[in-house]
């Protein structure tokens, strides 16, 4: 799997030579890998890498990698998230996008999952809906809906917020995992090529269903991340 990821990354740089195409990315050190309200790093610091290729016609593709630590130690390792999509700005300023992701866990293949998503953005607001036929190895269909907003406080300081809702549309009590609401509020700051973020995350399960393999303890947490952007 890693081999394919390396090929993808090299391909991204190779096609970046096309007219007006751009490659951007980030290297991040975060105090916790908080993903949809759940820690995928067992509340420990992780290093992350992201690369994105943007074509001039609106297509984009990227690869994101992170260390992960799950409930069972034999599942520790790396997660690679491959993603691709299309985004376009309309005359009104509204931006729409659609795409797909594939999450691959190197030491826990049973957790691999795919998602398709669609989203809208306007000014500093965005909303997306994701559908997975088999979310993170739970043998359940899931929908994840999120809304995000940010507000510029000063030239280099912005306030951001996020709310997400994970639901199991065909789930039955006792058989599936918890519907979940996650909230995040934080401040971010850009200094030259650096981006610092400090966020407070809140997670609230809606129903007391049993948890799954990937479900680490979830609790409210303060997460700091420092990213070098390139």
């Amino acid at each position, binding site marked *: 799997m890693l081999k394919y990821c390396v090929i993808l990354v090299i391909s991204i740089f190779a096609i970046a030579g*096309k007219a007006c195409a751009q490659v951007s990315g980030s290297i991040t050190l975060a105090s916790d890998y908080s993903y949809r309200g759940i820690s995928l790093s067992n509340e420990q610091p992780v290093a992350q890498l992201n690369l994105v290729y943007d074509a001039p016609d609106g297509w984009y593709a990227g690869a994101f990698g992170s260390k992960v630590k799950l409930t069972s130690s034999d599942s520790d390792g790396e997660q690679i998230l491959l993603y691709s999509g299309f985004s376009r700005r309309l005359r009104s300023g509204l931006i729409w*996008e659609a795409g797909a992701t594939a999450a691959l866990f190197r030491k826990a293949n049973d957790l691999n999952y795919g998602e398709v998503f669609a989203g809208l953005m306007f000014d500093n607001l965005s909303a997306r809906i994701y559908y997975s036929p088999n979310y993170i190895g739970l043998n359940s269909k899931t929908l994840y809906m999120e809304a995000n907003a940010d507000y510029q406080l000063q030239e280099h300081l912005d306030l951001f917020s996020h709310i997400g809702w994970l639901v199991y549309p065909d789930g039955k009590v006792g058989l599936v995992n918890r519907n979940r609401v996650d909230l995040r509020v934080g401040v971010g700051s850009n200094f030259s090529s650096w981006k610092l973020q400090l966020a407070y995350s809140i997670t609230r399960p809606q129903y007391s269903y049993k948890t799954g393999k990937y479900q680490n303890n979830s609790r409210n947490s303060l997460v*700091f991340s420092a990213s070098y952007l390139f």
Partner: protein
Amino acid sequence: MKARWSNRLSQFGLCLFLTLTALSGARLASADTAVEQEQNTAKEPEAKRRILVMLHLPAPHFRPDVSYSGGYSNDVSRTARRRIAEELARTHGLKLLEDWPMPVLNVDCFVMEESDALPEEQTIASLSKDARVAWVQTINTFDAQAKSDPLFPVQPANKYWQLDEIRKIATGRNVVVAIIDSGVEIKHPDLAGQISLNQNFIDGNPYVGENHGTGVAGVIAARAGNGVGIEGIAPNTHVMALRACWQEPENKTRCNSFTIGKALNFALTQGVQVINMSLSGPPDRLLKQLLDAAISRNIKIVGAMDPNRADGGFPASHPGVFAVADSKTRLLTNDILVAPGRDIPTTAPGARWSFVSGSSYSAAHISGMMALLSELKPSASLTQIRADMVVNPVNQGDANISGQVNLCATLSKLTSKCACSCHLTAASATAVNQP
């Protein structure tokens, strides 16, 4: 125990964040002081030997790495474009000065200063061949279209446009007019409360009220019924004062491609209905594209004709822009509008009023008219407005009537609302697009 490292990192992050925020605040405070110091020695922006280099600006999209909601103030891919721009500057012997994202055109606009070693044409040709560059252009200079002739006694335009009657059906309510010009005196007694937003797009040159911008704003939207000064054509309109031009010695007013581009880009994101551009210069690729984006959004762009340029100058010459002159001459084609522009009383900096002349103020009259039309018939297309524009016959004795736009008849024809003596007015006028 397992979360100890995470907690320590979060605490460290909190300390770092607070420190950097404090430093940022200190830097802003010192920047404010610098601005205050500069106010007395405001230098004019230098557009010579500078070029604009456009890089593609991708639409925001899903990214799993950093929290991002699509706002360009928080655009993490900007660093990548900055890096490309720095490489381009280094390779081509340029100095990178600043950038301004223009999402309306999907470009990030970088200003670079040329060295004296290479001719400008050679630098532009060389940059244009680079696959990473969308396009390159010079920074053109634009002049406000005001004359410096001695002022003559008042001849109120209100008389010819029957504003008292027009007020009964329209005042520009709920319409936003962006004025791209020099600074407007916000606290002028005839403009106080009329400016809904003012923004400065000239770096190193603080916002001040200046002659041209203040005069144009007065013609469009001076307060009515306040017992002082004049009345604007559309006194209830909301004015967005976008300072892209600056006043030079001898009362000249100048702008350039970059400052106007920033202001146009801003106006397009603010949902304005009318944009007044009482300025003129050479054709400009960046501004053409921004104007096309505005026209496609049905925004009414009004441009002042430059009598010294064969084509009337840009942006008046751009298709879709309502070009306005201050008098009817044989050289003008039928699609050029003529509106009052001589000896116009209007607002001036220092809580004063003065008389002004020039197509700048004719354009301001038409912008005021567009605000009235936007209130009465917001859905009217630009084509429909142009087709329904009515002008007075030429060769009449009074130059303030001859060949000029007939506001009353135009409003009546476009909106079917009659405010004046419509029968007589319409009968004595012709559609602007008729030969």
